[in-house]
């Protein structure tokens, strides 16, 4: 199993969710996060004083999937979250040793 983690622009979140649901992803964890990449943050102006705001709001999606689905899920996220402009985000895949469903005690694939 793999953990796919995606950090995307907030306004792309609905598109990504729909695409993942259509593909058959049954669950995910979503959080509002902030951070920055190469583009750094943005600038705000208060009474003429410019402030460099380092952290930009993003949505982080975490999905645990079967090994075979990981590439497809990554592809779907990249395709739907892409705007071509700077700050579109990142997706990464990490190995997952085991998953347990808390309600039933089911493990691994049965727990997804």
């Amino acid at each position, binding site marked *: 199993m793999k953990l796919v983690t995606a950090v995307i622009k907030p306004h792309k979140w609905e598109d990504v969710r729909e695409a993942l649901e259509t593909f058959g992803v049954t669950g995910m964890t979503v959080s509002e996060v902030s951070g920055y990449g190469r583009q750094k943050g943005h600038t*705000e*102006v*208060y*009474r*003429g*004083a*410019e*402030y460099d*705001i380092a952290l930009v709001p993003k949505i982080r999606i975490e999905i645990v999937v079967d090994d075979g689905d990981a590439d497809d899920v990554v592809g779907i996220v990249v395709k739907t979250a892409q705007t071509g402009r700077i700050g579109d985000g990142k997706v990464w895949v990490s190995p997952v040793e085991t998953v347990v469903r808390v309600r039933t005690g089911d493990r691994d694939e049965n727990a997804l």
Partner: protein
Amino acid sequence: MDGYYAFMLVATALVLMMTVPALALFYGGMSRSKSVLNMMMMSYVAAAIVGILYVAVGWSMGWSGDGTFFANPFELFWLDGVGTTDYIFVMFQMTFAIITVALISGAVADRMKFSAWLVFVPLWALLCYFPMAHMVFSCTEDSLICGRIGAQDYAGGTAVHINAGVAALVLVLLLGKRIGWPKDQMRPHNLTLTMLGAGLLWFGWYGFNVGSIVIVDQDITAEMGRTFANTTLATMAAILGWLVIERLMHGKATSLGAASGIVAGLVAITPAAGAVNLSGAVAIGAIAGAVCAWAVGLKYKLGYDDSLDVVGVHLVGGIVGTVLIGVFSTSEGAGGIDGLLYGGGAGSLGDQTLGVLVAVVFSAVITAVIALAIKYTLGLRVTEEDEVEGIDLAAHGESAYDLHTGMSGGGGGKTGVLNTRPADSEGAHA
């Protein structure tokens, strides 16, 4: 004249509202979340202290008789000899004293000791505001700014805004910059409070300006109409003036700019509200909005930390409005003088400018004496630790916001009484 008293009752309540809560909201929103309560408390305690002091000696110093700088403080001590009908006008003037003192607090946000503020407020009201109110408002023959110089000030361009603005500048020079300024982020923590406060200030300002009726050779309702319309139009023009400058200089028209434009316009039209016609009001508002939008940047160039721009808005806006009376006033107005633009020559402009200079020097000297006395006895500034962790906790043992949910407080009282420290154990040492 029962209608007059009924109106003045409303006007007085409106002006009190300008401090509590309008100014507190305006300033509170602009300060940082760790010091918003202290910011608001500075306004609230100014109301409490100055109000009582005003009844004791303030009214007497301002209005009991002649004197170049002030009248006898004990002539009408504790309103002895003042009829209760006149209490309404006493209360009206009291609210002016209150907001003038409270205005200063925006400059010293985050770092002035609350105890030092509690000492500064009565001393400054007594030695700086009450005399200035006499010099400007009571307008006896001897009174310096109105009587001797002959400068016009309808509702407080010199006595209120220049006075508070100069005091703010002197205080920040003696206090020093906030830790980290100007490098660190010190942006407003809640602009919705600021927008609400600015709107309430505008509302309350009708009491401020329209309530300052002088009734000179014309009927009272005409004067009310003029001051009400001038106050409104100048404010509208100032919003636009500020936003245009902001858009040109920084690329965006901001909400803080609109809120600030409101205040800048109101400040500038305050001295001129009775003196000018509608076009004069629009011109003064637009100029004040634009000039103040530029002036708030001066602190970065000159290096003084006027936290919430009391100098940039009140001192500069007050000067703009007071001086421009010499340009835009018309003889139909309350002062009966034609300004430069209406063929009256430069005489009025000279009087207005001299009035400004006297107000600036008087306020600077008196404020410096008071602030230095406090600095070398009680101390003006909180400790570095208290400033970094927030003056709300240090001075008041409170924090403005608890935005945590779920993680504590709902789990069978684990975080309840046991973790609550006695109130006197920490945090009450500012």
